[in-house]
């Protein structure tokens, strides 16, 4: 037996090598043929562009969350909104510094009492099938948004700007026709409000308010917006390719009347969950814009393409006040003072996040005096370990023993990092306190918090419009959906309602003062909500990419992106 083994094993070893050889060979021609198909496909794909500009200019943006819908009335996530605003326009759009400017509207008239907005739609505004964008398209779109049958998550936004009858229509108490909007003529759209709204124009750039062509919509039946052939566009780009879970391609609409001549010919949004491989691809030059996470931020902060931005998202802990022990004010005070927000923002997250100074983020809203809300309201959160210990001792005395609290958070990288640090800080600064961690997927976390099945929960809120009200409304005792901690304060309710719907609603200065006071009552008097940090976002943006406009309240703008 021994004698035949050797030559055979040699033969086998040789086979192994050949085997390896063939498998590499098999790889190589495959690559070759593929390159062939790409070459063949590329001219066909980009035929028109190549003819026009010589070389097609393509920008690739990596997203770590997938597109969920192109129907702007049922969309709820940021990435879907970003892609929708590529190929649809609103009456207004936002400039680079976040100010509203006319887009589909040519001009806007506002009545003296601030209750009637008349939009004159530009005569050149057209859908991609050549028909005019008319006031009726807006009427139809807004009515659909309010329609209780559609149950759009963003229907509330009509109520936020106080469109006449919006609450009744959304609640199904009045037909959609009674919504306070009308088409005066083909190109004149009129909105009537029950109360003035300072931030209405900025919101017109938000996809929920975009128009919808009734005729086309009805011709598509239940297939509307499910594919590139089931949509018509009214924005600077047309969606030309939709590969679910992979990439979404937008190609410049040559007929758009406000075409930006500099903007890139093609913008591709690529879905890539794993940021490490995305960054590798960025460094290989295949991706132009990519988000960074965790350690990557430290690693690439010297990179020429490194960009830090501040987002409007505020992360906070709404203390669950239905839990007996948390009804103890001293315990809540101890928690508030025990958290070192600066360390969490600067040393744990490092992505441009900043410590929260209150429940309203910075750069969200500007008051009647021209100052940022935060500047007026000041810093109302505080880190003070001595106070924390003192209040905790008082709480232990009142509660009759040491406390164990459960901290619920979602399974994202940032949340986990913040949660373990919060645990450490709370336990160190309140000696005797035990904090257990409870990590759940986001959807489950939300469900648990909505049903008050938690003690401390790390959650966030992204502003829908540039006004503190987007946060203040959350903690009204009547807001059963969003008031997760069941904060119930007559003082707070009165202040907020007075400012948003009551006697001060028409007086900007008084309204502002009310909101400042309401925030103070909630955060620094009742300690019902513990603000932690305002979200930053670290990104790598290739140095030859220009004109990406980030908006902390509103949708990020890739409509003018271009590569040098």
């Amino acid at each position, binding site marked *: 037996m021994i004698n*035949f083994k050797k030559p055979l094993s040699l033969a086998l070893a040789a086979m192994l090598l050949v085997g390896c050889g063939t498998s590499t060979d098999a790889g190589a021609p495959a690559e070759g043929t593929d390159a062939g198909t790409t070459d063949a496909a590329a001219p066909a794909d980009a035929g028109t562009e190549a003819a026009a500009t010589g070389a097609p200019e393509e920008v690739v943006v990596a997203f770590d969350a997938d597109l969920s819908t192109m129907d702007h009335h049922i969309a709820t996530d940021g990435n879907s909104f970003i892609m929708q605003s590529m190929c649809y326009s609103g009456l207004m759009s936002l400039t680079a510094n976040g100010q509203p400017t006319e887009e589909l509207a040519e001009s806007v008239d506002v009545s003296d009492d601030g209750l009637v907005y008349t939009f004159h739609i530009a005569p050149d505004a057209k859908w991609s099938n050549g028909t005019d964008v008319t006031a009726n398209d807006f009427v139809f779109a807004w009515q659909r948004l309010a329609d209780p049958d559609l149950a759009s998550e963003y229907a509330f936004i009509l109520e936020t700007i106080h469109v006449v009858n919006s609450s009744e229509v959304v609640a199904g108490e009045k037909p959609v026709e009674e919504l306070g909007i009308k088409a005066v003529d083909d190109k004149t759209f009129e909105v009537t409000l029950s109360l003035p709204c300072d931030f209405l124009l900025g919101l017109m750039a938000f996809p929920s308010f975009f128009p919808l062509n009734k005729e086309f919509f009805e011709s598509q039946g239940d297939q509307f917006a499910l594919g590139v052939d089931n949509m018509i566009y009214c924005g600077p780009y047309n969606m030309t390719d939709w590969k*679910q879970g992979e990439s979404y391609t937008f190609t410049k609409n040559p007929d758009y009347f406000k075409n930006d001549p500099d903007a890139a010919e093609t913008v591709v949004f690529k879905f890539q969950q794993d940021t490490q491989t995305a960054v590798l691809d960025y460094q290989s030059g295949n991706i132009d814009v990519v988000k960074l996470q965790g350690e990557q931020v430290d690693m690439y902060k010297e990179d020429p393409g490194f960009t830090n931005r501040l987002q409007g998202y505020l992360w906070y802990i709404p203390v669950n006040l239905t839990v007996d022990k948390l009804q103890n004010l001293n315990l809540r005070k101890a928690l508030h003072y025990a958290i070192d927000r600066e360390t969490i923002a600067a040393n744990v997250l490092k992505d441009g996040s900043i410590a929260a100074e209150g429940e309203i983020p910075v750069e969200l809203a500007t008051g009647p005096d021209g100052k940022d809300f935060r500047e007026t309201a000041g810093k109302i959160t505080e880190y003070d370990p001595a106070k924390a210990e003192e209040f905790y001792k008082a709480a232990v005395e009142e509660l009759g023993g040491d406390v164990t609290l459960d901290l619920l958070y979602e399974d994202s990288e940032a949340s986990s990092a913040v949660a373990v640090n919060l645990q450490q800080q709370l336990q160190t600064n309140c000696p005797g306190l035990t904090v257990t961690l409870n990590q759940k997927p986001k*959807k489950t976390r939300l469900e648990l918090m909505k049903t008050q099945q938690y003690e401390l929960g790390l959650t966030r809120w992204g502003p829908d419009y540039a006004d503190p009200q987007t946060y203040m409304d959350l903690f009204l005792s009547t807001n059963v959906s969003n008031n997760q901690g069941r904060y119930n304060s007559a003082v707070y309710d009165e202040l907020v309602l007075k400012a948003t719907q009551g006697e001060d609603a028409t007086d900007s200065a008084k309204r502002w003062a009310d909101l400042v006071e309401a925030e103070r009552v909630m955060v620094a008097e009742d300690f019902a909500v513990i603000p932690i940090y305002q979200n930053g976002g670290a990104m790598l943006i290739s140095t030859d990419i220009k004109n990406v406009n980030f908006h902390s309240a509103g949708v990020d703008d890739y409509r003018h992106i271009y590569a040098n």
Partner: protein
Amino acid sequence: MSKYITKRVLVSLGTLIVILFVLFLMLDKMPGSPFNDEKLTEAQKALLYAKYGLDQPFFVRFAKYFIAMIKGDLGVSYVISKNKAVADLVAAPLWLSIRIGARAMLLGTVLGLLLGIAAALNHNTWIDTLCSFVSIIGVSVPSYVFALLLAYYIGFVLKLTPILFSSKNVAASMILPTIALSMFPTANISRFTRSEMIDVLNSEYILLVEAKGVRQGGLIFRHALRNTLIPIITIMGPILVNLLTGSMVVEKVFGIPGIGMLMVQAIQNNDYNVVIACAFVYSAMYIAMMLIVDILYGVIDPRIRVAKGSA
């Protein structure tokens, strides 16, 4: 034989229906809902439940789903790609995953057999040790770690292959995921082949063949390999299942829009119909593989065929 196969197929179908029911039940009992975004009101949630028929009793929903499913309608997605038909949503990813999985399996089997045979023939030499080492690495380093290392060294440093998946260049962008996924089958099959081969080589009938003076190459492939292959077929099923699980993470690393990634996304988002469809597809593939392995086993090993034929 055909009677046996018919019976096995029928039992498998029955099992699948029960699995579907269990999946339905599990999702029903799961906390959370597809419609629990921060900004949705309770009233709207109720409306959406009514719109999609989620407010109906459990058995009504199951019956409706089952009937629609027979007609090829798997419902619509609630979250991932709102209102898209799940059947359309699942088809392309499934095909992609199968293609990658099949390649990885093929590569893994070939490499595994070669390594295993080489190790067995050189039992207790450095070649044997090397092969064992490779297979241990293959089973003990998670596939996503491999995947990222491959992406880094082959894709990024050497620039031989694309890093991320692109449907414009499918064949090239499937190379790295295929290699990453094939590690596990390679390791398992080589280990198994080695021990089976050693057994077979030491068995009496090989000694007999040897005594008859059969030439070496022919000896191995005609007699030893065939008998080694039979038990290997039995481990194919579990390996394939493992491949499916591995594909979920490898797909995430390379950004492949495959069925694994779709399912993980669906589970995270409580997208009921998509979860059920993906999980059901997995179960169906698993049961089909078991069935095929059983039947193949019968085809290759005459003893089993005889035994079952007479039973």
